[in-house]
Structures are given as C-alpha cells and as structure tokens.
C-alpha cells in the first residue's frame, strides 16, 4: 500500500470506528463526566462564595460590635460626666445651704443674746432698785432709831399730809 494514498478500507473503518467511539463516549462518558466536573466546580465555587459571605458577615458583625462598643463608651462618658456635674452641683448646693443655715443660726443666736442681755439688764435694774431700797431702808432705820428723829419724820409726814 502506498504511503500517501489513503486506503479505502482504512478510511471506512477509521470513519465508523471513530464516529462510533465519539458517540458512545459523548453519551456515556463525556456528558456525565463534564456534568460531574461542572457540578464539582460550582460546588467549590459556592463553598468559596459562602466562605466569603461568612467572612464579610463576620467583618460586619465585628464592625457593628465595635460601633456598639464605641456608642456604649460614649454613653458611659456622658453619664459619668452628668453624674459628676450633678455631684458637684449637689456639693455646691449643700455648701450654700450650710452657709445659709449657719448665718441663720448666728442671727438667731444674736437675737437670743440681745434678748437675754435685755432681760439681764432689766433684772440688774430691778435688783439695783431693790438693793437701793434696802440700803435706803437700812439707812432710814438707823437714822430713825431715836425718838427725836421719829418725831421729826412723823412731823414731816404730818406736815405733808396737812398740806394735802
């Protein structure tokens, strides 16, 4: 057989042999195989995608947590500041109240002292008056111990009475 003349027999067998192989393999080998490969590739792709989504979700969650945390911190700071302010204010108020109360008490004490002083003075005056009366009485008693003096006095009173 010649080298560059294709033999009819070989052409025939090659054509039908190859076509037979082609159709059998397409039906029973390549279709199921390519489908399985596609399925596997898509499942891998899906797995990768879902991993990516999970990672994104995690990142979102983390970001959200951080946000919440910062917000909480801010709120805490605000609350603390408010509390501090309130306490400062309360202390100030208490101080003021105390000062006021003290002033009031001092004023009251002063008033009481004044009254006491007046009362004492009045007492002293009474006592001085009674003392002077007693002294006078004692003096008088001494002066009038003799009859002459008594007579003179009675005379004096009688004079006065007469005049009336």
């Amino acid at each position: 057989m010649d080298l560059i003349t294709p033999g009819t027999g070989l052409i025939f067998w090659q054509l039908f042999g190859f076509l037979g192989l082609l159709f059998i393999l397409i039906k029973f080998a390549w279709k199921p195989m390519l489908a399985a490969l596609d399925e596997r590739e898509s499942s891998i792709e899906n797995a990768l995608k879902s991993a990516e989504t999970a990672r994104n979700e995690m990142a979102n969650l983390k970001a959200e947590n951080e946000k919440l945390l910062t917000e909480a911190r801010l709120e805490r700071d605000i609350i603390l500041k408010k509390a501090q302010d309130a306490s400062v204010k309360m202390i100030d108020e208490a101080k003021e109240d105390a000062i006021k109360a003290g002033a009031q008490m001092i004023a009251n004490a002063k008033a009481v002292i004044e009254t006491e002083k007046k009362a004492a003075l009045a007492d002293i005056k009474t006592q001085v008056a009674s003392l002077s009366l007693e002294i006078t009485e004692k003096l008088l008693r001494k002066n009038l111990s003799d009859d002459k003096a008594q007579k003179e006095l009675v005379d004096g009173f009688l004079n006065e009475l007469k005049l009336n």
Partner: protein
Amino acid sequence: MTRKILVISLLISAFLLGFTSNTYAAGGEEDKTSFIMHHVKDSHEWHFATFGHTHVTLPLPVIVYSGDRGLEFFSSTNFQNHETHLFGEEYAHEGYFIDEHDHLGRVDESSFVEFSITKNVIMLFIVLIVVGWLALSAASFYKKNGAVAPKGAAAIIEPIVIFVRDDIAKNSIGPQYKRFVPYLITLFLFVWFGNLLGLIPGAANMTGNIAVTLVLAVLTFIITNVNGNKAYWKHVFMTPGVPPLMLLIIVPVEIIGLFTKPFALMVRLFVAITAGHIVILGFIALAFIFESYTIGIASTLMVTFINLIELLVATIQAYVFTLFSAMYIGSAVAEHAHDDHH
C-alpha cells in the same frame, strides 16, 4: 528510574535486533532498509518476527465488495507464498491478488472497494478499545461517587478533560466552547493514544497513516463549516475591508484557505508520526548496513533517545491537532471575526 528505562529499552532493542537480524543481515542494501517502509505502510498481515525461515505473523481478513460479486471475505494467507510469506501477483486467489507492495488488485481489472481489516485497522480497534475503556471507566467513577476528587481511571482522564476543556476549547473557541468539548477530548485521546501505542515495538503506524489523519481532518472540516456563522462566511465571500476589485483575488484565496486548513492538519500529523517511525527504524537499519556491534550499540542508544523524543512528539502532535481543530472551529463560531480590521 532513568536507568531502568534505559536498561529496558536497550533490552527491547537488542531483542528486536535479534529478531530481525537474520532476515535483513543476509540481504542486499535494498533488503536491509526495505523493512522501514514495510513497517510504516499499512499491510494485509501483521508481521511480528522471523526466526530463520519461520515467520511469526497474524493473518488478517481481506474484505472486498464489488458490484458483480458482492461482499467477499478471504484470509490474507490465501494471497501469499506459505514458505516466504511474500505477497505477489502470482499468488492470485478467487480473482484477487495482493501485489508485492501489499496492494490489493483484481485479476480482470474491474472495479471493487476494499474493506479489509488491515494491520492499521487492528491497531485502530486497539486504540478505540483502550480509549473507550479508559473513558467509560472514568465516567463510571463519577456515576458511582458523584462530584468528588477523582481516583483510578478518572484521575488519568480528568486532567486531560480539564486541559482540553479549559486550555484548548475555552481559549480557542470562546463562549460557545461547550458544544465542541466532547469532540475535542475524543480527538485528543484518540490521537494521543494512537501515537503512544504506535511507539510500542511491533505496533502499527496507525496515526502516521494518511487515511486516518484524512478522516480526522475531514471531521474537523465538517464540524467547522457546518457551524460556520454569518461572520465566518462573510469573511470568506465578502472579506471586510477589502476593495471590491481585490475580492476577485481574495475570495478564491479564502476558499482555498477553507481546504488548506484541514489539509495541513492531515499532513502535519501524518508526517510527524511517520517521520518519527522512519528515523527510529533508520537507526536500527544502520546496524544491519554496517554489520558492526559498535554501530549497533551506538544506534541502539540513539533509538532510545529518539524514542524519548517521540514520546514528546506523540503528545505535542495530539495537542497541536486538537488545538488547531479548536482554533478552526473557533474562527467559524466567533461572533466577531478576529481579522475584521484587515
């Protein structure tokens, strides 16, 4: 590993030299190299070895169809000398003969069609069985196990399938590649295993036969042109960007181009594989021509080396045939022809 391969190939080569030396060492210059062309061409019998005057051959069926006599079956042994196993016109049988060039002829010279199971047809069947078995057992793995990591035959076939699908079909055809992947995979595996099995000592030069490459090239040609879209045919008959007068020259060139593409496919594979076989056998023939042990050892080493290169060529040629088929198909189905800007 390399040492083992070297030792094995040396042993095989020595073995083959032993087989053939008795036959060829005795003859003239012509006889000493005639086995090369005899191996490269197709044959009506499969000759394995000759021990002295004993020929180890596989006789093959000769199938002939003629208008007047219908379908007829013979054994190739009917057409040869039983002693020398040589074919010749003098050994005619039932009106047919096989001449010394292994060519079937009819004594009365009327027309007939031959469907003989020749050496290459047997080789073809072997390749079909190997490829079919591998592919089907790979497919059955997926049926059993579903979409999991491949094992066994699937592990051999799957990388090839993915390679053909992604690196050849997807890259060369474009978005419509999926339709053509099964054809391209079958083509690749057929050519590849044909090339590889052809390298086994004693095997036939099947993918280096022009009838085989012709059929494959014609299939690619048919698939390409059946799927040719508007842009493809417009490119052929109304090449865009070419002045009307120039079309007179361009259109015939484009039409010739339709046929030169598959022709190139056919010739490339045929030449590459046949040349490889001839080179290997040529080195073996050197031993017979010089009848020297030194040359024998040197040529055996060269044969081993060329064999390794041929393993590479077998793969490259399968890749190239598939790649070019994919590119031709791709040019036919592309939405916008690449050469619109000419």
